[in-house]
């Protein structure tokens, strides 16, 4: 029966929308998290030619035959790159981007291969370099290597001095007297087309492979980016929006489930025509 199939197909799609919303809510405290929105679209429409004699149709407005659809689906799940609120932390190695299309270049090891990633998470740390106890490198809080403006990992001598991120987007090492010993600019890029990015998990994005992006113009290195220091960009999830969407989604799911049970009852009526 068509109505039961329609209902069953769309219920699984509404379930996916609920999953997206709960993922947003779960990440309400994640630094630099960008919320996702699931949007619906119609499925195909089927035409039934139920008139044997089209010429005998009197008072007809629409073209011959009847057409109705077979349900809905999630058309796309879009990532919303709106700026989150800036929270002051006072930590020297924390920084926040002021612009929604600025990202930090990081290197992620996946299956033994390094992959170019981009993140908004400005909570940086110094991690030991494998094999050399005298060196440390700048990494994100998940341990991904941060790239400098030259594309290479930022390696500093261990115990070299106080390390902080300065407002001009660089890792700066200060000596005993407060003088600058070393200054390495961070690999900050501007993504002019955020639609080419896809989420890799762990707050890192990468360019979706094979979608025709022109990397030379779409991801532009920034040399003098201004960042907010001692602060972090919070998640851009708004709890009131997500709760409203959650309620709408749940009620929709309920309405569809009702049509499913009623369709089942109709089938029961047909089966009980003759006891």
């Amino acid at each position: 029966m068509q109505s039961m199939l329609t209902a069953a197909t769309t219920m699984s799609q509404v379930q996916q929308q609920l999953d997206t919303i709960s993922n947003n809510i779960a990440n309400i405290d994640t630094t630099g998290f960008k919320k996702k929105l699931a949007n619906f679209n119609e499925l195909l429409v089927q035409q039934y030619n139920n008139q044997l004699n089209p010429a005998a149709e009197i008072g007809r407005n629409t073209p011959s035959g009847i057409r109705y659809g077979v349900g809905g689906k999630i058309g796309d799940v879009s990532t919303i790159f709106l700026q989150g609120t800036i929270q002051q932390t006072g930590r020297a190695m924390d920084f926040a981007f002021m612009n929604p299309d600025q990202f930090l270049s990081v290197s992620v090891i996946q299956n033994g291969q390094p992959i170019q990633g981009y993140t908004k998470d400005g909570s940086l740390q110094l991690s030991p370099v494998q094999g050399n106890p005298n060196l440390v490198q700048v990494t994100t809080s998940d341990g991904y290597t941060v790239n400098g403006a030259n594309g290479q990992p930022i390696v500093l001598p261990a115990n070299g001095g106080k390390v902080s991120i300065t407002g001009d987007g660089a890792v700066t090492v200060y000596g005993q007297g407060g003088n600058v010993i070393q200054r390495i600019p961070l690999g900050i890029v501007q993504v002019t087309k955020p639609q080419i990015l896809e989420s890799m998990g762990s707050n890192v994005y990468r360019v979706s492979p094979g979608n025709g992006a022109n990397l030379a113009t779409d991801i532009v290195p920034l040399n003098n980016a201004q960042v907010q220091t001692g602060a972090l960009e919070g998640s851009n999830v708004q709890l009131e929006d997500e709760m409203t969407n959650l309620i709408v989604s749940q009620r929709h799911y309920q309405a569809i489930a009702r049509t499913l049970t009623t369709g089942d009852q109709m089938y029961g009526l047909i089966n009980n025509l003759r006891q």
Partner: protein
Amino acid sequence: MLRGFYDAAAGMITQQRLVDMYTNNITNAQTPGYKADRASIRAFPEMMLNAYGTMGVPNTGLPQSYTKVGALNTAAYVQEISADFSTGSIKQTGLSTDVALIEGNIPYNAQAKTKGSLFFTVQDAQGNIRYTKDGHFQLDSRGNLTTPEGYKVLGVNGQPIVVQGTMKITQNGQVYDNNQLVGQLNIAFSSNPYLLKKEGNGLFYLDNNAILPTALNTPNVTFGVSQGYVEQSNIDLGQETTNYMLAYRSFEANQRVLQSMDKSLDLAVNSVGKLQ
């Protein structure tokens, strides 16, 4: 056989089609730009019933008499399913690629007995022109403005709209890319929306892939385009669920009629002329 049998069965099929249609409406309650389907049911042509009397005697030349009983319809069927083009509520999303089409002054077509309607123009993969009310667009990696299926949104010049930088869309549909004018959204006007057929994925089309005129050149048609807003589905869950329940109960009533027809036939077949 008893005429009622076929009537009741046709009634059940009609209500089943209605239920399928209402279910589809309910499943698309969250689809932007979705237009609810409405059905019209028509009775099959009438036939005249005459009761032949017993006054006449054969082979005597005296006329056979009959009394007119009246007209009887022989069941009903779903004649048409048409979309209800009333505007759904406008929701603010803040996405720069979401566009809402707000109808201003739309003339009433007295011949077709309907108001006209405005649509966005898109082009599918085969190059055919399609129309849609769903303003939730995306930018693909090459900068084309597309629907979620990937169909390109066309401008007034018939070319896809391409944006490489920051997109701004004005009230009359002009598209600016980093403050440079790159095109104008083609808003098509249909004076008789009954002629449009649904294709699926939120698209409408005319027979033979015919083209609708653009609303910019049409007198007495005004509209506004709002960026950052999207028009939602125009279905009302309460109304659809109520209609759905009515269709189900009609289905049940037809089923009861069918059962009682069955019992009558049972008597006619098994009990008439039975010798005790």
